[in-house]
C-alpha cells in the first residue's frame, strides 16, 4: 500500500471506532488524497492506519526526514518508532516518566522532553531490538515542558522552573551530561524554543517573549 500516492487503505474501522473515545491512545495517519473512495466517502477522509499505544495520551508525532518513520511519546513514559507506511511499531523505549511534548529529531537522535527525567536522548534508528534504552540524559530541575530545539550541534530545552538549558547535542560520552549553558528566566517556559538566524526565542508564563543570541 503506497502512502502518499492516492492509495487508500480502508482498515475496516467504522465510524464508531473512529470517534475517538473507543480508540484509546494511539496514532492515526490520515490521507487526504481523494474525497471519495473509502467506505465513508461523505466524510472525505480515510484513515490509513491506527496504532494503539500505551497510556492515555500522546504527544504530537514527529516525522523522519525520509518520512519512513513516525516518532511519538506517551504519558506512560514510552517513546515509539512506528513504520509510517504500516503503522507497525519498530521499537519502543521507556524514558522513565511522562513524555510531555514532541521529541526533537536531529542527526539520528531523538531529544525527548519528560516530566521528571529531564531531557532523554534516544538513537532514532533504534538499537536492533524491540525495546531500547536511552543514550544519555540531561538533568533538569523542573519538568521539560516543551519540545526541545536543535541547531548548530546544540539542543535547547525549557523547564517548569523557568530555566533554559543548552546541551551538546552529541552528548558527553557519559550517561548524564551537564548543560553547556543555562539561564534563568524566573518564570516557567511555556513557549518552546525556536531558533532562527542566530537567535533563540522562548515564551514564558509571565507573558514575555525572550530572545537570546551572540551580543
Amino acid at each position, binding site marked *: 500500500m503506497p502512502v502518499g500516492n492516492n492509495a487508500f487503505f480502508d482498515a475496516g474501522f467504522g465510524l464508531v471506532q473512529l470517534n475517538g473515545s473507543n480508540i484509546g491512545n494511539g496514532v492515526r495517519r490520515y490521507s487526504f488524497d481523494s474525497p471519495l473512495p473509502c467506505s465513508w466517502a461523505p466524510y472525505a477522509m480515510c484513515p490509513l492506519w491506527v496504532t494503539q499505544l500505551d497510556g492515555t495520551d500522546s504527544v504530537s508525532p514527529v516525522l523522519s526526514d525520509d*518520512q519512513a518513520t513516525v516518532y511519538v511519546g506517551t504519558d506512560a513514559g514510552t517513546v515509539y518508532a512506528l513504520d509510517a507506511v504500516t503503522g507497525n511499531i519498530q521499537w519502543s523505549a521507556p524514558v522513565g516518566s511522562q513524555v510531555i511534548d514532541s521529541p526533537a529529531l536531529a*542527526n539520528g537522535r531523538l531529544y525527548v522532553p519528560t516530566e521528571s527525567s529531564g531531557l532523554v536522548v534516544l538513537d532514532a534508528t533504534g538499537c536492533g531490538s524491540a525495546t531500547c534504552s536511552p543514550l544519555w540524559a540531561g538533568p533538569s530541575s523542573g519538568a521539560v515542558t516543551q519540545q526541545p530545539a536543535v541547531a548548530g550541534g546544540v539542543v535547547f530545552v525549557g523547564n517548569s522552573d523557568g530555566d533554559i538549558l543548552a546541551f551538546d547535542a552529541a552528548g558527553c560520552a557519559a550517561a548524564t551530561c551537564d548543560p553547556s549553558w543555562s539561564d534563568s528566566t524566573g518564570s516557567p517556559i511555556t513557549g518552546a524554543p525556536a531558533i*532562527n538566524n542566530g537567535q533563540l526565542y522562548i515564551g514564558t508564563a509571565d507573558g514575555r517573549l525572550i530572545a*537570546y543570541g551572540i551580543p
Partner: protein
Amino acid sequence: MWRIVGRVGCGVALLCLGGCWWPVPGGGPGRQANNAAEDQITAASVAGIEELWSAPTDDGAVGDPVTSLRGVHVGDATSVYAFADHDGSRLWSYAPDGAGSTPQPFVTGEEVWAGGAGGPTVALDASTGAVVRTIVGDQTLLGLGESYAVFGYRIVPGAAMVDGLTAPPRPGCAAAACSSALMKILPGRCRWETTPSSMLASVWCN
C-alpha cells in the same frame, strides 16, 4: 490531477519563502524542531549567548514562537503579536474573535495565521497585522503543526491540501477543546478542515 509537491524539506520552503526558519511550532511540518541551517548558535559559541531583549505581551503565558521574514510571532491568551527580531519592539498585535486559549500563530509566506477558540481564523499581513483573509467556520481551528505532523502537500485546482498524522484527542476533554484542523497552506480558494474528535470534515471555499 493530484500533484505531489510535498516532502517535508520543500514543505518548509513553501511555508516560509526566502530563507527563514521556524514558521510553525516544531520548526516545520515534520515537527523535528531542528534548524539545520543555523550557523551562529553552535556548540562552540553557545557559552557566549546572552539575553538580547525581552518583550512583554498583554495577557498571560506566551506560546510557541514562530518566525517570518518580518519578525517573531507569538500568541498569548487573547492576541497574536509581531515583534522585530533585532530589538523586540512590538510591530503589531491582533486579537482574534473568541480567543479563549492561546491563539498559536503559524506563518505561510507573508501571512501569519491565527484563530481563536470558536471564532474565525484569519490570515494577517506579516508586516502590518492587517487582515488579509477571514476564514469563516464554526469549528475551532488550530494552526498547522499544533497537533499534526505533515507528510506533504498536494495541490489541486483551487486548493492545496496536506497529508497529516495526528495524535488522538485527549480523553475526556470537550469536543471544542479537542478539535484540530488542517487547512490549506498555499494560495488557493478552498480549504479542508477536519475535526478528529467528531471526524467531520468540511470544505470551505472563499
